[in-house]
Structures are given as structure tokens and as C-alpha cells.
């Protein structure tokens, strides 16, 4: 078996991974860096982010306000020291990206322009039209090209973390082009493998978002944190799940039900005004808006579409000029994929799985409890997002914690002991497992896609916007069963060249692990907070649950949940208030 060796290895070439890679090479140009990614880095899912990235830059704004919005938006489940570090460093990181060439949208005088965003009290969201993630990712990727110390493994799929001597020392990966399985060793490994929206049937997430990174860490013994907090975005296109960015509402779009009524006013989100008001109505937080949709549906006030109930997003009053200038991609997506032109027509939308608040548990520098393993980006839970992430906080999170993890991993690598020799034996075992379980297995019965669909259905019914004891318990049982069935997969493809059938099977097994950890964490949190809403426990319970859940993988493969305290610095838990009252409270 081939073995290649580096100092710092990144699993993932999205926003977080590339930022971390640059951080390592700027800190110490002598370190050999490897970026392993199952797709070419510029295809990573960061490319899809539309709306923007939050960072305090205008003089009427302050770091404390950004921190407060984030913490209250996260229903006080955020670690406040992490949030403080985050809001502090976000502006510098966004400026750094500007210096690398990111085409941020500008004011007439040449300064950075900002736009309002859901749950944010001030305008602080930087944007590059409505392709913010695309421009950020391409800027980062093109910038990495100038560093000679960064070596890329494009289209390599990581299947396992190599752990020996109590620390992570590399990975086993398959080169898709040739089918070669090999060990890539490193003194420290940073997971930047993104989220796992694909465990649900209806999601804005790309096909590559299958929770591989979470699964890798979980199996290697690192715990996952706050996995029950799953964000629904209130405005996805039916069927495709394509996201209509929050920026559409920030620019003044209305959400209306079948009577053309702006129903959010019935759900404690303020009173309707013609112009958008920050932290009010359509600019409330995502969890509240998605929950309001379900209530409307129960009242029979949604519209029945071919793919289930929808409400309408109305942009018509904004006019063609503004839509073309600020929301061109929204118009393109609607006309291309939904056959409606938002300039003249209503856009049908429904809540759609969008983002994972939870992830691999890390400290403020991206270090996981497992030595040598770091994590950053959507795969990680630092946590700044608490029970509900605010729109436009994720992109700056990639940068801030990508850079932090990069620095920490570089330092770790500089002082780490050499790689153990016994690593190779583990890699051989992994190769044998893949060959025997998948490539040479001729007795399998189950289809990957069937189990995947059943898993997705199970997740939607058991762990959707509203959950109960019984739905979750049933879900947990089904998932256990699916785990067993997945040991018996039959691949159609037994070849080595670009075997996407094999990739799908490996992804499925990661997703099943992640799904189980979600359902288990949700089952045990008997309260409602942020995106986690239990109809049988509708109140927030700070006494018992002002705590992070951490899931470990027990020896039998089942999830085991423990709790960690939330770190509170300056903002004691309060009530989340949106709409006009919030405006007044903050003004005083």
C-alpha cells in the first residue's frame, strides 16, 4: 500500500478547509499541508451560499450587539466566549478576504456595502450580490493556488481516521479516479467536511453533504455536540429544495398565506410594515418562521401544491430594478427551476432542512477532545450557533474558526511525535474491510438508495420541525434496524474506476450514524429550545437543559448522550423577543 506523509492534513476543501490551509501556510511555510476533498474544492457546498456573511464594520454597530443577536438567536445555548471571539475576528477575516480579491458588493463611495439579515438588529451582512458563498469559495481556492506548501488530493474520499497511541495520525482515503486505497498520514488532522442535510429527504444541501466528517470523528471516538438542533430554512422551493435566500426577505419580500395575509403577525413576530424592520416579521429568526409555517398548515391556511403545502413569498412590489440589482440569482433560480418570475409572480416556498447547528465537539481553537484532531466549519460545533444559527453567521464562522483551527493544528504538528509504525496495519484492515464488505461482496441484498430513502423518511417523520417522545422513539428503532440492514448492501458496481456506487454506500453508513446521534439527542432533551421543539415539552427548561448534549459512540455502536455546561460570560439567559417590542427594548 502507498503511504504519503504530510504535517497537517485537511479533510475537506470548502470554505473552512481552504481558510485553514492558508492559515497553516502563513503561520509556517515549512509545514507540508494536504487538502483532501471528495470533490474538486471549488465544487464544495460553500459555493451555494447566497445571502451573505455577518461582520461588524459600520460605525452605528457594535461587537456586543452582534454577540447579543447571536446568543439570543441561539436561545442561550451558545458558548459565549466562543461568540465573543467570533464577533471580534469576523470583520478582520472578511476584510482579509477582501484583500485576497473577493468581489464584495460596494457602496457608491467604494466602501463595503452591508444588508439586513434575519435575526440581526443592525445591518451587518456583507454580500457579493446573492452569490456570496460562491465568490468566497472561489476567492479562497484561487488564493490557495499561490502557496506551494499546499498539496491537493482532488476527488479522494476519506473513509477512516487513523488513531494510534491516543492521537489521530492520518486518514485512509480512496482515489476515485483509480480506485486506489491508501494511507495519508499527518501529525494533525483538521476535519472541514461540512454538514449533513442529506440525512433528510427535503434539503437545500448538495448531494455531497452526507455528514462524513461527523461520522469519521464519531467512529474514531470524538463526541458530537448538540446534534438535535437542525435548522429548517423557511423558504425553499418545493420539490428541488433550492434555497431562496433570506436576502429576498431582507430586501423587503413578504411571506403570505393562501389569503394573501402576512401571517407572521399572528405568531409574536411583530406587526407588518411596508418596509422591512430588523428582527421583526419576515426578518425574524429561521426557527420561528419555520414553526409558524407548520401552525398555518394546521389551520388550513397554506396552499396545496403538487409537492405538499406551500406559502407564498411575494417580491413583486420590490420592482424589476431592485430584484435585478440585488437578487439576480433568486430571479434566475425561480425562472429556471420553478418557472415563475418573481418580478410578476408569487414564489411558492416551504421550510426545508438547511443547516446543522451541531457537529464535532471542539474548543474555541477547533481542537476536539481527541488529540491531533481538529474541526472547523459546519462539521464542527464550537459552539456559536446554539439552538438556532442566525443567517449569515455560518460563512464568517468558516473563516474565523478555520483560521483558528489551522493555527492550532500547525502548532500541534510542529511539536508532535513522529507517526507510529503500526498505523499501516490499520490502513490495511480498512482496505480489506472496503473490499470485503462492498467491492467483493456478492451475497448482499439491500440497495443503498432504498435504505437511504427509508432513513430520510424516518428522519422527517420522527425529527422534523416538531418532535415528540413517541415519534423519536419510533425513529430510533427504525434507524437501528436500518443500520443492521445496511451491513448487507449489494453494490451494482464492483469496479475500481470512479466508483460512485461505493461512495454512496460509504456515505450512507456515515449518515446512519449521524442520524442515530440526532434522534438520540433529541429524544433525551425533554424541553423546547430554538430549533428543537418538543410538543410534549413545549417550554424551555434552563434548570436542566442549559447544557450541550454530547454523544459518544458506545462499543456496540449505539449512541450514548452526556451533557456539558454552556459557557456564559456576560449575557444571562433571557427571553427571546422579536418584533417591535425588541426594537424598543434595545433602544433603551
Amino acid at each position: 500500500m502507498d503511504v504519503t506523509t504530510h504535517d497537517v492534513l485537511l479533510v475537506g476543501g470548502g470554505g473552512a478547509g481552504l481558510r485553514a490551509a492558508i492559515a497553516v501556510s502563513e503561520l509556517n511555510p515549512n509545514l507540508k499541508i494536504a487538502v483532501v476533498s471528495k470533490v474538486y474544492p471549488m465544487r464544495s457546498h460553500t459555493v451555494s451560499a447566497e445571502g451573505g456573511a455577518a461582520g461588524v464594520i459600520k460605525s452605528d454597530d457594535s461587537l456586543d450587539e452582534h454577540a447579543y443577536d447571536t446568543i439570543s438567536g441561539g436561545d442561550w445555548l451558545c458558548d459565549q466566549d466562543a461568540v465573543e471571539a467570533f464577533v471580534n475576528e469576523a470583520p478582520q477575516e472578511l476584510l482579509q478576504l477582501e484583500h485576497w480579491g473577493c468581489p464584495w458588493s460596494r457602496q457608491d463611495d467604494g466602501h463595503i456595502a452591508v444588508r439586513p439579515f434575519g435575526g440581526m438588529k443592525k445591518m451587518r451582512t456583507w454580500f457579493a450580490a446573492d452569490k456570496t458563498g460562491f465568490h468566497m469559495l472561489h476567492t479562497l481556492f484561487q488564493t490557495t493556488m499561490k502557496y506551494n506548501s499546499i498539496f491537493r488530493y482532488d476527488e479522494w474520499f476519506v473513509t477512516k481516521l487513523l488513531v494510534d497511541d491516543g492521537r489521530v495520525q492520518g486518514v485512509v482515503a480512496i482515489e476515485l479516479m483509480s480506485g486506489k486505497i491508501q494511507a495519508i498520514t499527518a501529525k494533525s488532522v483538521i476535519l472541514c467536511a461540512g454538514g449533513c442535510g442529506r440525512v433528510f429527504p427535503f434539503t437545500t444541501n448538495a448531494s455531497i453533504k452526507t455528514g462524513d466528517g461527523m461520522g469519521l470523528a464519531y467512529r474514531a471516538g470524538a463526541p458530537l455536540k448538540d446534534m438535535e438542533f437542525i435548522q429548517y430554512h423557511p423558504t425553499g422551493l418545493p420539490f428541488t429544495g433550492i434555497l431562496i435566500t433570506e436576502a429576498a426577505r431582507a430586501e423587503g419580500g413578504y411571506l403570505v398565506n393562501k389569503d394573501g395575509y402576512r401571517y407572521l403577525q399572528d405568531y409574536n413576530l411583530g406587526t407588518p410594515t411596508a418596509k422591512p424592520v430588523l428582527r421583526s416579521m419576515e426578518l425574524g429568526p429561521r426557527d420561528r418562521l419555520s414553526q409558524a409555517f407548520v401552525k398555518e398548515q394546521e389551520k388550513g391556511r397554506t396552499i396545496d401544491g403538487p409537492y405538499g403545502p406551500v406559502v407564498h413569498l411575494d417580491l413583486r412590489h420590490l420592482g424589476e430594478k431592485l430584484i435585478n440589482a440585488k437578487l439576480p440569482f433568486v430571479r434566475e433560480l425561480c425562472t429556471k427551476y420553478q418557472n415563475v418570475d418573481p418580478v410578476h409572480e408569487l414564489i411558492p416556498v416551504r421550510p426545508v432542512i438547511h443547516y446543522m447547528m451541531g457537529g464535532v465537539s471542539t474548543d474555541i481553537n477547533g481542537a476536539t477532545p481527541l488529540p491531533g484532531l481538529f474541526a472547523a466549519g459546519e462539521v464542527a460545533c464550537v459552539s456559536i450557533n446554539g439552538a438556532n444559527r442566525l443567517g449569515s453567521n455560518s460563512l464568517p464562522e468558516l473563516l474565523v474558526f478555520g483560521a483558528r483551527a489551522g493555527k492550532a493544528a500547525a502548532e500541534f504538528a510542529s511539536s508532535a511525535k513522529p507517526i507510529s509504525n503500526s498505523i499501516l496495519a490499520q490502513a490495511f484492515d480498512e482496505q480489506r474491510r472496503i473490499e470485503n464488505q462492498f467491492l467483493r461482496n456478492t451475497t448482499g441484498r439491500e440497495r443503498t438508495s432504498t435504505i437511504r430513502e427509508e432513513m430520510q423518511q424516518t428522519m422527517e417523520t420522527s425529527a422534523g420541525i416538531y418532535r415528540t417522545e413517541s415519534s423519536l422513539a419510533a425513529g430510533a428503532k427504525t434507524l437501528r434496524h436500518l443500520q443492521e440492514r445496511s451491513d448487507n448492501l449489494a453494490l451494482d458496481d464492483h469496479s475500481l474506476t470512479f466508483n460512485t456506487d461505493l461512495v454512496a454506500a460509504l456515505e450512507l453508513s456515515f449518515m446512519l450514524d449521524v442520524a442515530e446521534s440526532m434522534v438520540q439527542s433529541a429524544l433525551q432533551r425533554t424541553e423546547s429550545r430554538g430549533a428543537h421543539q418538543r410538543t410534549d415539552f413545549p417550554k424551555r427548561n434552563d434548570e436542566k437543559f442549559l447544557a450541550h448534549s454530547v454523544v459518544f459512540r458506545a462499543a456496540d455502536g449505539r449512541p450514548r448522550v452526556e451533557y456539558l455546561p454552556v459557557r456564559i460570560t456576560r449575557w444571562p439567559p433571557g427571553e427571546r423577543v422579536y418584533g417591535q417590542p425588541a426594537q424598543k427594548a434595545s433602544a433603551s
Partner: protein
Amino acid sequence: MKSSVATPPYTLNHPRWYRKRVSTYWWLLRWEYLRFVLREISSVFVAWFVVLTIVQIYAVSRGPDAYAEFQDFLKNPFVLALNVISFFFVVFHSITWFNLSARAMAIRIGGKRVPGFLISGPNFAAWLVISALIAWLLLRE
């Protein structure tokens, strides 16, 4: 890089890429390609016009008889047919040229790029004026 070399057979973990050779008749496979090739071929007829002009000047320089001979040559049905074809090609050249030049130039006024038709439009207008002017110069009594 040659495309026709036989690729070695597949061996474990060594991908064997399949390279298609571009057909010699690639330009016939799609209308867009054919249009492009016709556009390029128009230059042959441009060259033919230049040759004709040089011969004409030569004829004039050799005196009235040679010039008359040249006029007769132009009346030859084959030459006439060739010139009709040439005319269509040079007109095709003009049209494609004006359209392309609009795309090749990024003229900005007040920070906004001037749309293509505002560049090609005046070109077409100038073409008409120039043609009229030349016709008038050559044909006036």
C-alpha cells in the same frame, strides 16, 4: 500531446482514459461550427477581390487594350458567377465582423459597459454611408 497513440490496456489502479480523436470533418457536425468555417472561408473571397483589383490596376497601367480585355474577362460567365458568390461571402464577412467587433470591445461610458448593439449599430450605419459614397464617386457622370 498526440491523441491517436494507442492507450495501454487497463491495469490495476492505473486509469485508462479514453481519448476521442477529433474528426477531420468536425466542422460539418454542427451548424455553429459550419457557420464559423464559412466565416473564415470568406477571407478567401476577400483575397480574390484583392487579386482582381491588382489585375485591374495592372491592366490600366498597360493601356486601353489591356483594360478592355480585362472588362471582357469580367463578363465571362464563370468569372461572373464567381464574383456573385464572392459578393455574398464578403457581405457575410461584413455582417459577422461588425457583430463580433461589438463583442470584442468593452467600451465603458460612465462606468457602464455600452451594450453591443450600440457599437455594431453605428458600424452598420457607417458601412451604408461609405458604400453609398463610393458608389457615387465611381458612378457619377
